[in-house]
């Protein structure tokens, strides 16, 4: 396979709140032969769930600024956060299709010496692993299969737009296949598509707790060993959020949550320290005992 080299858009949630996930992901990329160069002058994507409603033009302009900066670096832009992926993907698509909007955005970007051209693609982590590298190639890197582990996938909502190109959005299987690569058993479950309810945090906390609890309860009943996601916000919701649920409901959910590259890294032989598992709120010791 030719060398894969991308400009990396790390976002804000991962570098600021989950830097251990960034570190783990970079180690896995390195082992897979994926080279990444950080985007110079990266700002917030911006967030596709609040800023876009508050000021859509600001959303377009700031996202286009990031895309323009990435175009200057010349390589495809790789995202490791589903929120960033959605914003950058949608803005890239809309500006490519709408010349008037593109001109207006560029008239503002001109003030800071930038110009959006629409010349690069936005790529997601899921696309990179599942579509570009592919499960067969990934399998070659597995040195410690996670045999015997039952892992529940949680794809999250923002990535579904991206799936249209390589998976079936109404019945996605990419994340399940990627779990299978690690040697673990991906399980299908009723609340698989229930959202992480992050947005409800600002609006109705009880609804958020109910939604989290519903999924965690089903996973408890199924006796899964862990939940895996590719979205840092979903990760925070189910990891730190799990403690909130326990506090509010007096339950004792204890389901370790992984960002996908951490699970893959464990199967590739990286240690739990290298994969940053010590930083998780719900400890994965139970799962690791089975493994090591």
């Amino acid at each position, binding site marked *: 396979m030719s060398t894969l080299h991308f400009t990396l858009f790390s976002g804000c949630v991962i*570098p600021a709140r989950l830097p251990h996930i960034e*570190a783990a992901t970079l180690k896995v990329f390195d082992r897979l032969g994926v080279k990444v160069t950080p985007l110079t002058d*990266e700002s917030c994507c911006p967030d596709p769930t609040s800023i876009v409603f508050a000021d859509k033009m600001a959303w377009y302009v700031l996202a286009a*600024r990031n895309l323009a900066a990435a175009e200057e670096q010349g390589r495809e832009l790789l995202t490791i956060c589903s929120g960033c992926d959605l914003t950058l993907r949608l803005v890239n698509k809309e500006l490519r299709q709408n010349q008037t909007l593109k001109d207006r955005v560029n008239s503002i970007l001109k003030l800071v010496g930038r110009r959006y051209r629409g010349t690069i693609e936005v790529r997601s982590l899921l696309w990179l692993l599942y579509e570009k590298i592919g499960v067969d190639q990934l399998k070659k890197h597995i040195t410690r299969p996670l045999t015997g582990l039952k892992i529940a996938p949680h794809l999250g909502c*923002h990535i579904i737009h991206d799936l249209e190109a390589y998976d079936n959005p109404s019945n996605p299987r990419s994340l399940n296949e990627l779990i299978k690569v690690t040697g673990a058993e991906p399980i299908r479950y009723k609340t698989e598509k229930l*959202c992480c309810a992050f*947005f409800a945090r600002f609006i109705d906390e009880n609804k958020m707790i109910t939604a989290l609890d519903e999924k965690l309860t089903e996973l408890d009943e199924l006796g899964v060993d862990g939940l895996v996601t590719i979205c840092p916000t979903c990760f925070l919701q189910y990891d730190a959020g799990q403690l909130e649920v326990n506090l509010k409901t007096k339950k004792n959910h204890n389901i370790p949550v992984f960002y996908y590259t951490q699970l893959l890294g464990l199967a590739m032989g990286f240690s739990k320290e290298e994969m940053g598992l010590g930083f998780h709120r719900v400890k994965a010791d139970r799962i690791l005992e089975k493994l090591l």
Partner: protein
Amino acid sequence: MFDALTGKAVKCDLCGGDPKCIKVCDKGALKYTFAEDLSKTKEDLVALSISASTKAGLLVMKLGLELSKKTVGDTLLFSQMVSAKAEGLRRFLEHCANNLSTIFNEAALTTFSETVLRRRRSLGLSEIKRPKEEVQTLLKNLSSLSEESG
């Protein structure tokens, strides 16, 4: 169902497991399937709606609750949330709109705290520099644009 010929209500016997009504309904509005599969289809629709929730969210805010009820149905958490707390949501979005510069400065530009920077260093991660002045220039010009048009 009502049998017009006999003038009596009769119970559907599913034509012995091969319902003819399904065959004559060329628009595909009728479906003979297991209840489980039916709810799965609904789940799929809900998932798709959620997928679009960030996008649909914008519509929901602008077009109000009716749209969300029509497009995503009552089972969807997002819709329930909006229905139950539309006022809270409106306030939240108003807050976002009124505090854009603060939000961008604090969240969008991500001012990293010393604790975060220390942790990044201990993990061997690169320094992150945000283009604060550039973003502020853009925001300033964006707000003057909206004042002109508003």
